[in-house]
C-alpha cells in the first residue's frame, strides 16, 4: 500500500486523526494567510510611497524647470498636503505624475476628491479661501496615499511662490520612493509575533495524535517497514494537512488583505491594490510553509525511525542543564550593547531583539523544568503534583504549549513600556502659546501678509487681528489669536501667504496620529497573537487529556468526579503559564527600556514612563492560558462518555 493511500485510510477510519488533520490544516491556513499579509506590507507601503513620491521635492536631480514647495496645512485636525508649483519652462515638457490631470496654471488649484468635498461642505472662509479660486481638476487615486487624502496642487508664477522653494528638474518619480520604515519594522516584528503562535498552533494540532501515531509507526517499523517507508507515510499524512492548509491560506489571503485595507496608517486607509505580492513570492511562500511543516514532522520522527522499540515503550526524561539559563543574560547583554553603542543601526538592534526572542526557545524549557521541580517538591494538591510531573516529564512540550502566550506577553509588555514613554515625550518645546496661529515670513513680506490676513478676518466678521512679531529680518512671524471656534477661519486668513500656518495643537495632533497608528497596529497584532496562542494552548490541553484518556477514564471509573479532575488539569495548565507570563513580562519591560534608550540618545531629558498597564499583558496572557485550559472539561466529559475505551 502506498504511503498516500495508507494516510488516506487512516484519515478515513480514525476520528481523532481526522480532527488533528483538520486542526493542522486550519493552523497552516492561518499561518499562510498571515504570512502572505505581513510579507505584503512592505509592498503596500512601497505602492503608497510610489504614488505619493511626487508630493515631495526631487532633490536628487538638479534643474530649474520646476519650482516646488510643499507644506502641511490642517483642517479640523486633518492634514492637508499642499504643493505649490511654478514652471520656468513650457509646462508641456514637464512629465506629470500619475493621477495628476494637468499642470496647474498660475491661479489654479487641483485638489483631491476628499478635499474638494470638504471645500464645498465648509464655508469658504474656513477652507476654500486658502487656495486660488479656480479649481482646475481633481487628482485621482493614483496620485494619493489613500483615497481620503487631502491634497492641493497650487499653480503659481515663479514670483508668487512661497519662500521655501526648491528648484528641480521636474516632479519626483515613483522610482525614487522609499517605503515607510516604521511599518516595515512593525511588519517584521509582526511576522515573528504572529508566525510563532501560528506554528505553535500547527505543532499543537499535530501533537493531538502524536502518541498514537508514534505507536502506529513503531508497530510498522517492528513489522519490517524501512525508515524511508515510515518517513514517507508521515510525510503523506502531514502533507495532506499542510497542502490543504496552504491552499486554504492562499484562498483566505484576499479576505485578510481586504480587512487590512480598513486599518488606517499615516492618516488614512489603503487601496485594495496596495496589498499585492509578486507571483514568485506568493508561490515561494505557499510552497515553503507546508515544506517547513513537513520537515518539522519528519524531524520529529527521528526517535521512531532510529529505535522503534524505544518509541513504543516508556523512557525516563533526561534532566535539562542549567547552562540554558545563560542564553538570556548573554543575548540580553548583546542587545544592550547594540542599543548603547555609539551609532546603533536598525539591523544590529533588530538582530539583538531577535536573539533575545530566540533565547526563549533555550531558556523557556529550562524554566518550565525548574518550575516543575518546585511543584514536585512542594505540592500540596494533586493539581500541583500532576502539573509538576508533567512539566518535568516533557518541559519542551509543556513550554511549546505556552510559547505563543509567552511571545504575546513579551511583545505586549515591550510595547507598553515603549509607547507610554514615547507619549510622555510628545509635546512641543517651542515658545508658541496654545490658541495662537502663526506664519513665518520675511520682514519684507510680513506687512502685506498681516494686512491681507486682517482684511480677510474683517470680511469674515472676526474680532481677531494678525500682528507682526520678531526681530531678525529673516525670522519674522505674523501671529493671530483664536478663540477656538474661529480657528479654521483664522488659519484660512493667515494662509494667504502660502507659507505653512503653525499652531502647537496641530503639531501635537501629528504626534498623536503617529502614536495612534503604532498603538492600533500593536493592539491588532497582539489580539491576533493572543487568539492564536489561546487556540494552540486549548488544543494542547485537549491533547494532553486525550493522551491520558485511559488513565483519566480509569480514575473516573474509580469514582473521581470530572470537576475534581478538571480543576486539577486547569491548574496543571495555569500554574506554569503564570510563571512563563510573569517571566516574559519582565523581559519585555527590560527590552522595552532598552529600546527606549535609543530614543533617549536623541532626547536627553526623556524619561521612561512605567504604568500599571504593564501588568495587563501578564494578566491577559494568564487569562488566555486559563481560558484555554478550561477546554479540559469538555475533553474529560468526552472521556467520561467512554471511560475505558482507547477511542
Amino acid at each position, binding site marked *: 500500500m502506498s504511503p498516500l493511500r495508507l494516510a488516506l485510510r487512516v484519515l478515513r477510519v480514525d476520528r481523532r486523526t481526522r480532527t488533528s488533520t483538520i486542526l493542522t490544516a486550519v493552523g497552516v491556513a492561518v499561518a499562510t494567510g498571515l504570512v502572505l499579509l505581513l510579507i505584503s506590507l512592505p509592498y503596500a507601503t512601497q505602492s503608497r510611497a510610489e504614488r505619493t513620491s511626487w508630493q515631495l521635492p526631487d532633490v536628487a536631480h538638479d534643474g530649474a524647470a520646476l519650482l516646488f514647495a510643499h507644506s502641511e496645512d490642517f483642517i479640523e485636525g486633518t492634514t492637508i498636503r499642499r504643493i505649490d508649483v511654478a514652471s520656468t519652462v513650457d509646462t508641456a515638457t514637464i512629465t506629470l505624475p500619475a493621477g495628476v490631470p494637468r499642470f496647474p496654471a498660475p491661479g489654479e488649484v487641483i485638489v483631491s476628491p476628499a478635499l474638494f468635498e470638504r471645500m464645498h461642505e465648509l464655508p469658504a472662509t474656513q477652507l476654500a479661501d486658502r487656495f486660488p479660486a479656480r479649481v482646475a481638476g481633481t487628482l485621482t487615486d493614483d496620485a494619493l496615499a489613500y483615497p481620503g487624502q487631502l491634497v492641493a496642487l497650487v499653480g503659481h508664477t515663479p514670483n508668487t511662490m512661497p519662500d521655501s522653494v526648491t528648484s528641480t528638474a521636474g516632479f519626483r518619480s515613483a522610482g525614487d520612493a522609499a517605503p515607510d520604515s516604521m511599518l516595515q519594522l512593525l511588519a517584521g516584528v509582526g511576522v515573528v509575533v504572529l508566525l510563532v503562535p501560528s506554528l505553535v498552533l500547527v505543532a499543537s494540532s499535530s501533537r493531538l495524535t502524536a502518541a498514537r501515531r508514534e505507536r502506529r509507526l513503531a508497530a510498522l517499523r517492528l513489522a519490517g517497514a524501512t525508515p524511508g517507508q515510515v518517513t514517507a507515510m508521515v510525510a503523506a499524512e502531514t502533507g495532506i494537512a499542510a497542502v490543504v492548509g496552504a491552499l486554504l491560506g492562499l484562498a483566505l489571503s484576499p479576505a485578510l488583505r481586504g480587512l487590512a485595507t480598513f486599518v488606517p496608517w499615516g492618516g488614512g486607509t489603503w487601496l485594495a491594490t496596495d496589498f499585492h505580492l509578486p507571483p514568485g513570492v506568493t508561490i515561494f511562500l505557499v510552497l515553503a510553509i507546508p515544506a517547513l511543516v513537513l520537515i518539522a514532522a519528519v524531524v520529529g520522527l527521528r526517535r521512531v525511525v532510529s529505535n522503534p522499540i524505544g518509541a513504543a515503550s516508556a523512557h525516563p526524561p533526561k534532566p535539562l542543564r542549567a547552562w540554558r539559563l545563560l542564553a538570556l543574560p548573554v543575548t540580553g547583554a548583546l542587545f544592550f550593547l547594540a542599543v548603547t553603542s555609539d551609532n546603533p543601526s536598525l539591523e544590529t538592534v533588530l538582530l539583538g531583539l531577535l536573539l533575545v526572542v530566540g533565547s526563549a526557545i533555550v531558556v523557556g524549557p529550562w524554566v518550565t523544568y525548574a518550575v516543575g521541580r518546585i511543584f514536585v517538591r512542594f505540592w500540596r494538591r494533586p493539581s500541583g503534583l500532576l502539573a509538576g510531573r508533567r512539566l518535568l516529564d516533557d518541559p519542551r512540550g509543556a513550554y511549546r504549549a505556552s510559547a505563543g502566550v509567552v511571545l504575546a506577553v513579551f511583545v505586549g509588555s515591550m510595547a507598553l513600556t515603549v509607547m507610554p514613554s514615547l507619549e510622555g515625550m510628545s509635546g512641543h518645546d517651542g515658545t508658541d502659546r496654545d490658541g495662537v496661529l502663526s506664519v513665518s515670513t520675511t520682514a519684507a513680506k510680513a506687512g502685506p501678509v498681516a494686512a491681507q490676513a486682517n482684511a480677510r478676518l474683517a470680511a469674515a466678521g472676526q474680532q481677531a487681528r494678525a500682528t507682526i512679531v520678531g526681530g531678525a529680518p529673516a525670522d519674522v512671524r505674523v501671529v493671530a489669536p483664536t478663540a477656538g471656534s474661529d480657528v479654521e477661519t483664522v488659519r484660512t486668513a493667515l494662509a494667504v501667504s502660502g507659507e505653512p500656518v503653525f499652531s502647537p495643537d496641530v503639531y501635537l495632533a501629528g504626534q498623536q496620529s503617529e502614536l495612534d497608528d503604532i498603538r492600533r497596529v500593536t493592539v491588532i497584532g497582539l489580539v491576533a497573537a493572543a487568539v492564536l496562542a489561546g487556540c494552540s494552548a486549548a488544543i494542547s490541553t485537549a491533547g494532553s487529556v486525550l493522551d491520558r484518556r485511559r488513565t483519566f477514564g*480509569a480514575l473516573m471509573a474509580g469514582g473521581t468526579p470530572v470537576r475534581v479532575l478538571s480543576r486539577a488539569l486547569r491548574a496543571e495548565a495555569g500554574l506554569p503559564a503564570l510563571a512563563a507570563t510573569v517571566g516574559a513580562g519582565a523581559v519585555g519591560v527590560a527590552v522595552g527600556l532598552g529600546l527606549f534608550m535609543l530614543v533617549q540618545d536623541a532626547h536627553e531629558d526623556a524619561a521612561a514612563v512605567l504604568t500599571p498597564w504593564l501588568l495587563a499583558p501578564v494578566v491577559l496572557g494568564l487569562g488566555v492560558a486559563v481560558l484555554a485550559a478550561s477546554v479540559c472539561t469538555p475533553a474529560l466529559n468526552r472521556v467520561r462518555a467512554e471511560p475505558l475505551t482507547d477511542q
Partner: protein
Amino acid sequence: MLAGRGLVKRYGTQHALAGVDIDIQPGEVVAIVGPSGSGKTSLLHVLGGILRADAGEIFLAGTRIDQFSEKRRSELRRTEFGFVFQQGMLVAELTAEENVALPMLLAGAPRKQATATARDWLGRLGLGGRAGSRPGELSGGQAQRVAIARALTHRPKVIFADEPTGALDTRTGKETMDALLVAAADAGSSVLIVTHDRELADSLPRTVVIRDGRIADRVAV
C-alpha cells in the same frame, strides 16, 4: 453484599446482558468467565456503577444502588468499590507512590496521609523499593501490583478486576493474582474477577460462566 437482579444492558439492538442474576457474599472471590463478547465486562461495569443498566436492580449491603445519580454512583465507586484494569492505567508521569496516592489526593486527603498510605500498600504488595519508580520503569507485573495497591487504599467492600493478568505471562500473572487475593483478604474485600484464563478461574473458590448475556453456569468449588 452485592446482588444483581434481572440485569439488562443493550448497545443498540445488541443485548450485552439479557437478564442476569448474581450474588456476591462478603469476602467472596468470584471469577466471571465466558467467550469474547459474552457480556463479562458489561456485567462488571454495570455492577460497579460505571455503566447504568437498562433494566434490573443492584443492591449493595441491602441498599438499592442502580437508581443512584451519577454523582452518588461516583461517590460509591470512590468509597465502596475498587477497580483493577488489564493495563493498570497508571499516570505515566507519576511515580508508583504518587499513582497510588492520587485517588486519595483527589478525594481531598492531605499529602502526608495519602503518601504514607500509598507507601504502606506498596510495601504490602512487595513494591516498597519501587515507590519512586515511574510506570515505564516497572515490569508489567509490578505495574499491575501498583494498580492493585491503588484500588485497595480505601479498603473497598468490593474489588472489580477486569482481566487483571491478561497482559502478563503465566508466572507473573499468578504472582499478581496471589498478591491481589492476599491484599483483598487483608482489606476484607470481596473480589469479582473477569478473566479469559480458565486455569485461573478454576483456581478461585467460585466461577460464574456467562454466555450471550446470560449466566450459563455456576460452579462452586
